[in-house]
């Protein structure tokens, strides 16, 4: 077959990455999903997904539209339950504790597991600085030095040099890519342990996408990142681990998970191979 004789570009991209081994970093137990199911009303959208997210790594969730990967992501910080009729089963363990346990303060969970959305969504009524610090105000957190935190978060999001002279202007005047990095800075300001990213680059141009990917690489040493992406090259470039999701008309399932290198170079499942080699989806 032709594809076997040609070098697989995705796997070559993935193999260039320095692979971080699970559990090498002392950052706590991390995030574990155990037998997650999700429903929207009567529709069973996701079936029996179990995964570990190791501290200090980037995990990419890939798969065709409607395979349940975004739904899975949203169960990890309890954003799933905002959709009317949404239900779930299974356990999500954050540092060993079930975030769905009765009596859990959900706002505390979302402080530890932050989220960046598909469409950049800065608060338009706030300035750039206010946007970054919005989480502190919303969750009523105190900080010793706001200016320091502001600079640190914008620096980590790769935005500081571009906005440091206009921190008090409104965030809406920024470009799409800048707005998305502003949203990343905003998510970082509450010092999350895990950052969930739901197709963060799908509304951005290639230049901005590259910047966000650089930001992800910088962040991965301090924050556990889970990223949903439709762009397989992006998954190959930024992630240490990759999970492939697929729906065969029924609920979405996780077909295969492993190191990004393995998934793109030597997938075990035929369906994964078909997808990553572009034969369908």
């Amino acid at each position, binding site marked *: 077959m032709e594809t076997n004789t040609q070098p697989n570009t995705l796997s070559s991209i993935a193999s260039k990455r320095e692979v971080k081994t699970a559990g090498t970093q002392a950052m706590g137990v991390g995030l574990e999903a155990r037998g997650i199911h999700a429903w929207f009303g009567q529709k069973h959208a996701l079936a029996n997904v179990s995964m570990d997210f190791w501290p200090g790594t980037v995990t990419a969730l890939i798969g065709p539209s409607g395979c349940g990967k975004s739904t899975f992501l949203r169960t990890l910080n309890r*954003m799933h339950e905002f959709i009317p009729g949404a239900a779930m089963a299974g356990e999500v363990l954050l540092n060993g504790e079930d975030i769905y346990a009765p009596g859990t303060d959900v706002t505390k969970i979302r*402080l530890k597991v932050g989220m960046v*959305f598909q469409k950049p969504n800065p*608060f338009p009524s706030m300035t750039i600085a206010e946007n970054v610090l*919005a989480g502190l105000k*919303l*969750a009523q957190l105190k900080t010793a030095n706001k200016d320091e935190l502001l600079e640190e978060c914008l620096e980590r999001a790769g935005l500081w040099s571009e906005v440091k002279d206009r921190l008090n202007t409104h965030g809406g005047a920024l470009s799409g890519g800048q707005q998305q990095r502003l949203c990343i800075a905003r*998510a970082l300001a*509450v010092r999350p342990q895990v950052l969930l990213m739901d197709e963060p680059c799908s509304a951005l141009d290639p230049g901005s996408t590259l910047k966000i990917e650089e930001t992800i690489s910088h962040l991965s040493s301090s924050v556990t990142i889970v990223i949903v992406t439709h762009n397989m090259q992006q998954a190959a470039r930024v992630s240490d681990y990759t999970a492939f999701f697929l729906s065969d008309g029924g609920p979405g399932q996780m077909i295969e998970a492993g190191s990004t290198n393995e998934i793109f170079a030597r997938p075990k499942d035929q369906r994964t191979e078909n997808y990553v080699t572009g034969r369908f989806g």
Partner: protein
Amino acid sequence: MTQTPPVTPPKREITTKPRFSDKVFRGVVTGGGLSSLIILGLILGFLLYEGYGTFKSQGFHFITSSNWNAVVDANGLFNAKASTFGIAAMLIGTLVVAVIAVIVGVPISVGAALYLTFYAPQFIRKFMVTAIDLMAAFPSVLFGLWGFFVLESSGEYWAKLLNKYLGWIPIFKLPTPYVQHSPFIAGLVLAIMIIPIVTSVSREVFSQTPLDRIQAAYALGATRWAMIRAVAFPYARSGIVGGVMLGLGRAMGETVAVYTVLNIVYQVNWHILFSAGGNIASMILLKFGEASPQEIKALMAAGLVLFLMTLLVNSAANYIVNRSKSGR
């Protein structure tokens, strides 16, 4: 060597040939749009024409004095010189009851709108939206009768309570202990009347709060209340102001309910618990039946003042709404 500067072509006129059907439709909707403007103009013209004489003979006293005295001489003829018409008491009364209505009604309305948008379960929301719409369509005379027979008795108790504990504030003072049929009670009835419209408008704008902003707030660990403060209020503020102004307009123009509940007295009364007050609309209703032709002209002039006052309030509202668009 001479350089020819680059030639900028003249701007072209951009036109299109409309189809016949489109022209007809355009005519119909333009007619609809203009007719409301024409009707408004005709009413204004009519009030100006009828009220002009009164403005001329009474001058500025028309809005600064509180005497309403149509003098008829021995021959049964109207004496324009001796007659005085002043609506100061009614003008102030209009503002007093409308402001009471807004102060009491708006917090309840905004609270109800927040509950319906962000807290209420689906079935309660559906039921309550229907109930509130029904309340908006309720005839005002029924509110007036209910206020007269039901609210009056409990309102009397609240009025005495307010006077007892807050009587040191001038507006809660009572010159004599008569608390029935007061601007306070009328304001409460009007508050209940404006709640549906203000709730309905506020709920509409709250429900349009962009979902991505709501989710952004929740994802940052916001409680529902923090989300409402940081996202929903800035977004909905201008819309709520618009709704409040609609309510204020209704409260200022309300006739029958105020006529039923309030003890209409021709004196400027700032003591809202005291049994005296009135508003322009209810005064017109009160006088209209037995007024001589000349007195009716004075009533038209009063109507014109009400008209201009409403216009002023609406313009102020528009100004506020346009200024505070930043949250969008």
